């Protein structure tokens, strides 16, 4: 899988080097260093024990007597483990204090809510108000800590981006804070790491890390779009470079897609900022045209997957809460897809 346009889940779990051993931030790098340190120490001790065992069975008489003596027990059985284990404990604790570095309150905040079976993402301003609503992807600035406010709307989920941090549970009725920081730009996959029923294995997301200035521009543009009312009668969104069909250039019409979007009931669950489409049950679609994935980190986002998802999401992600709109005609699906592509 390449380029982050494909599957967030595959990218979180697959690839070389394996994402859990390929840290892209200070949190993940402490955990990776600690894991390697413990593995190496474990191997060294296992080697010593195997050597002692060999000596005890096949070694020369003089060595065996030494090994069986009281001194060997004091040194090898008590002093050595006490020193090594204490050392590792101190080192491990020192290394992992950075994971619980106190939150100052000045960091940017993003609220991420686990839902069955997707992630609701809300960017907050310094007063804690939601300025941008999004879903299934998290955008982060480079080298700037961000605090994630992890919640759940239903059952226990767990938030995990292996490149950036350890897992953190999303527990109903609680707010768990996770401080993340990225030290490298790029796209990193994420998954729900706690079984949450039905299509849990198809619940993923994509994290994109931007240069600081790009991130600020990105967030400002999105916040401006979300605050903007759409005039009555106007079609929300702006048509971009949609995949045009050379034979029939005007075949799919975003305006008809918008009418269908309202009439079919999409707006009951999906919000498009500034319009009467204000449903909050499903993912916010204000920026769906630029979304890095569809279906919560599982499909690339293009005309084909958009039509396929709307037509029959139940065959792609069985049990998900969006019904298959298999009563729509192919033409109608095309209009809706053209409309959604224009939501940027």
């Amino acid at each position, binding site marked *: *899988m*390449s380029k982050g*346009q*494909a599957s967030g889940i595959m990218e979180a779990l697959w690839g070389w080097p394996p994402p859990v051993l390929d840290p892209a931030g200070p949190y993940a790098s402490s955990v990776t260093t600690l894991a390697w340190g413990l593995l190496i120490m474990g191997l060294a001790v296992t080697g010593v024990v195997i050597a002692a065992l060999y000596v005890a069975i096949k070694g020369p008489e003089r060595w065996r007597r030494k090994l069986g003596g009281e001194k060997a027990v004091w040194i090898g059985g008590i002093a050595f483990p006490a020193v090594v284990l204490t050392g590792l404990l101190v080192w491990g604790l020192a290394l992992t204090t950075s994971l619980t570095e106190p939150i100052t309150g000045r960091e940017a905040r993003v609220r991420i809510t686990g839902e069955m079976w997707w992630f609701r993402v809300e960017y907050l301003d310094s007063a804690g108000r939601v300025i941008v609503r999004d879903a299934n992807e998290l955008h982060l600035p480079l080298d700037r800590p961000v605090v994630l406010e992890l919640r759940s709307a239903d059952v226990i989920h767990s938030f995990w981006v292996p490149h950036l941090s350890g897992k953190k549970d999303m527990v109903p009725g609680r707010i768990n804070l996770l401080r993340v920081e990225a030290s490298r730009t790029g796209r990193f996959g994420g998954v729900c790491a706690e079984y949450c029923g039905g299509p849990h294995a198809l619940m993923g997301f994509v994290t994109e890390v931007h240069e600081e200035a790009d991130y600020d521009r990105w967030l400002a543009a999105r916040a401006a779009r979300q605050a903007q009312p759409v005039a009555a009668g106007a079609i929300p969104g702006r048509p971009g470079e949609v*995949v045009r*069909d*050379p*034979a*029939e250039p005007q*075949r799919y019409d975003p305006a008809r897609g918008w009418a269908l979007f309202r009439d079919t009931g999409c707006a009951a669950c999906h919000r498009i900022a500034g319009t009467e489409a204000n449903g909050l049950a499903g993912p916010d679609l204000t920026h769906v045209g630029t979304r890095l994935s569809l279906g919560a980190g*599982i*499909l*690339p986002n*293009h*005309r*084909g*997957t958009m*039509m*396929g*998802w709307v*037509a*029959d999401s139940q*065959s*792609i*992600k069985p049990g998900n809460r969006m019904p298959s709109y*298999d009563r729509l005609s*192919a033409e109608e*699906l*095309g209009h809706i*897809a053209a409309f959604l592509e224009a939501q940027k």
Partner: protein
Amino acid sequence: MIERVSCGSCHVIPGVDWPRGRAGPSLEGFDDAGLLAGALPNTPANLAAFVRDAPAAKPGSTMPAMPITAAEAQDVAAYLYGMKDE
């Protein structure tokens, strides 16, 4: 390539475990089909053109153009002919 653009969102394809979408026709036994989309002779060149830009190859096709290059489209066509149905 088939996995990257996720043809499986709409088609059941032998060798692709997931997704196995039902919005479009299943492609099992596809190499033995007489006509592509019921309209074009089932030749490698036609197939490669069709998977890349279906509406241009067959006006009125529901299947949208795909974000792949001509060379990638040939690879996809080769896979569709090469797969063995279990």
